[in-house]
């Protein structure tokens, strides 16, 4: 049963990732990314990382993916008027690099060889750690203790980083930055 759930979640995430690779529509790619992130959250649950699964859903699906969809919408070149038909699907097309096929060959070669190397490495590797027994227990307690003791410095740094990213993103995206850039140009 758990095996079945694992294969279902792994298939969900891999299919979503492949669909992101193969679809031409940016909006479809965003929604296939949603499938992938949900599948990865399921994999986290099966690896007895319950807190991380919830964090994955809240941060990625609730935050990053909404940001990505906002980005897709805001960088959409509007269709010429009169051409817009409400029956048409929302087409925001991402072209592939150097569309005459050489881009595909390069990308497939690089990533295929990388995956083949990793696969043979992992298939041949004999990790001693992976033969030990594991138990199911909630990780929330341990993560809370670790965040307040061993990882308190990275925890506070993460707070500073998020504040800086918030301020920086707000400043960068505001139209004020545009007018000052035009003044210096």
């Amino acid at each position: 049963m758990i095996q079945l759930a694992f294969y279902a979640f792994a298939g969900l995430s891999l299919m979503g990732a492949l669909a992101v690779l193969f679809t031409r529509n940016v909006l479809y790619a965003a929604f296939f990314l949603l499938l992938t992130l949900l599948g990865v959250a399921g994999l986290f649950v099966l690896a007895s990382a319950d807190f991380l699964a919830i964090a994955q859903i809240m941060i990625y699906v609730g935050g990053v993916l909404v940001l990505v969809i906002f980005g897709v919408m805001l960088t959409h070149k509007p269709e010429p008027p009169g051409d817009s038909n409400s029956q048409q699907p929302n087409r925001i097309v991402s072209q592939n690099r150097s569309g005459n096929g050489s881009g595909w060959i390069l990308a497939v070669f690089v990533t295929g060889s990388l995956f083949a190397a990793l696969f043979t490495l992992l298939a041949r590797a004999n990790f001693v750690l992976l033969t030990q027994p594991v138990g199911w227990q909630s990780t929330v307690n341990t993560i809370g203790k670790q965040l307040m003791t061993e990882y308190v410095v990275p925890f506070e740094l993460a707070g500073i980083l998020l504040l800086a990213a918030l301020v920086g993103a707000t400043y960068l995206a505001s139209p004020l930055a545009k007018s000052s850039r035009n003044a210096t140009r």
Partner: protein
Amino acid sequence: MQPVDSHLFLIVGAALFSIGLAVVLLKRHVIVVLMGIELMLNGVNVNLVAFSQYDPDRLQGQMLALFVMVVAAAESAVALAIVLQVYRHFRTAQLDELNELKQ
């Protein structure tokens, strides 16, 4: 109790990383490239979590995965703000059309 063979987690992580790298190499839209980076980070997180279940006392892998998520969220926020400014300036979000220095 060993419900799922952990090698499978590692292989899924490797596959996610490879697909994300293919997306980064192949796509021309900036936001799809960002999605590819998110896919690569997720593949790495799967790896970290798969190893971390054998370390229930310290959970170092899960802590690193948590910080990776935080940094990814900050990264995507700043990157999308930059993409918005680039779009306002050049009126395009396709990477191959941003060749002002080449001209």
